[in-house]
């Protein structure tokens, strides 16, 4: 997008009701059947944005903008026979249907985020009877929508997942802590029970098989305990340091697969702080990589986890 478009103010004169502020010449709205319901993906400022011609969750219908006064809804028609109540109920029971349609939904959101405009993402399959119903929502909630978009302007959500390979960490505990030059040494030495571990290792080496077996069990338990402590410390420190570069941060539910996920977090990062955020992530990766710790970055996302807007409590004015 060029700077002229970015500077378009959100309180410009309302656009004629059937015209789309989303520049999308391949989707003449007038060709679409008026009877089909309207799926809403997101709400953005009314400023004109450039979008490639992309389909919505109904692959046969393109996405377009539906202008209110200061905000616009990004919508697509959906065929009534494919997206009615019973069809959706059936679809939502089918993981393959969900996969295809959730990814199509997110494709629209990705495209909107790439315009650098603030984006309020609506829940998957928010479907209205017609355009008038969508406009009524925009009108009813306009001040709150404008305030929320202002708050989100220039900010992006990024996801970070932290994985710990337990075998690598436990190996590091037993070996690397003997080398003071290693960065991991400082981490592993914090708890102060290295001496106990090393004494056990030494004793086991000179023992009969039976006693060595029992002591080895004790050593294994100590290593697991220490690995847990280190993991908790790394998670806490990582989240604290990354949060330091974010406007807001939140931790999300962990995923059991793939194994080893110890932190799943989202950060709302100001664009000007993005380099610092990434540099912090790179530093953490270098510092703890030797202890079996790995970070995964995803984004930029719409600010899913940082929306403060509550539009659920009241209806529109219809």
């Amino acid at each position, binding site marked *: 997008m060029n700077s002229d478009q970015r500077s378009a103010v959100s309180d410009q004169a309302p656009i004629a009701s059937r015209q789309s502020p989303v520049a999308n010449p391949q989707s003449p709205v007038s060709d679409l059947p008026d009877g089909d*319901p309207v799926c*809403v993906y997101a709400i953005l400022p009314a400023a004109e944005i450039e979008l490639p011609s992309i389909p919505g969750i109904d692959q046969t219908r393109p996405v377009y903008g539906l202008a209110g006064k200061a905000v616009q809804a990004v919508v697509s028609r959906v065929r009534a026979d494919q*997206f*009615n*109540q019973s069809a*959706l109920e059936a679809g*939502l*029971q089918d*993981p393959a249907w*969900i*996969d295809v349609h*959730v*990814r199509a*939904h*997110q*494709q629209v*959101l*990705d495209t909107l985020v790439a315009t650098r405009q603030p984006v*309020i*993402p*609506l*829940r*998957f*399959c*928010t*479907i*209205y*009877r017609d355009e008038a*119903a*969508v406009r*009524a*929502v925009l009108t*009813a*909630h306009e001040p709150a929508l404008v305030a929320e978009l202002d708050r989100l302007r220039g900010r992006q959500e990024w*996801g970070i997942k932290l994985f710990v390979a337990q075998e690598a960490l436990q190996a590091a505990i037993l070996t690397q802590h003997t080398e003071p030059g290693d960065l991991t040494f400082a981490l592993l030495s914090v708890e102060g029970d290295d001496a106990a571990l090393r004494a056990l290792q030494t004793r086991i080496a000179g023992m009969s098989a039976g006693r060595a077996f029992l002591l080895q069990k004790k050593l294994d338990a100590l290593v697991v305990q220490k690995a847990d402590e280190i993991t908790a410390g790394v998670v806490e420190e990582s989240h604290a340091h990354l949060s330091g570069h974010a406007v807001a941060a939140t931790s*999300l*539910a962990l*995923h059991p*697969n*793939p194994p080893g996920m110890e932190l799943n977090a989202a950060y709302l990062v100001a*664009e000007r702080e*993005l380099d610092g955020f*990434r540099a912090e992530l790179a530093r953490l990766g270098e510092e703890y990589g030797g202890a079996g710790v790995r970070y995964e*970055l*995803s*984004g*930029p*996302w*719409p600010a*899913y*986890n940082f*929306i403060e*807007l509550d*539009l*659920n*409590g*009241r*209806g*529109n004015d*219809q």
Partner: protein
Amino acid sequence: MSTDLTIRHKEVALLELLDRVLDKGVVVAGDVTISVADIDLIYLGLRVLLCSVERMQEMRYTNTVWHAE
């Protein structure tokens, strides 16, 4: 903004998408044609289901790589 670190969402696990799209998308009251009242339950059910489905896909992927080598 550089895009080298931007993850394409096609590569993002479905569960991560659902955590946001189904669970965190803004719910707007109004003349909604489709009731989304049950979507919280659907999301929770999918979480449970996908944990095993994704593991299956992972194993399948590993198998493919194994055979390719």
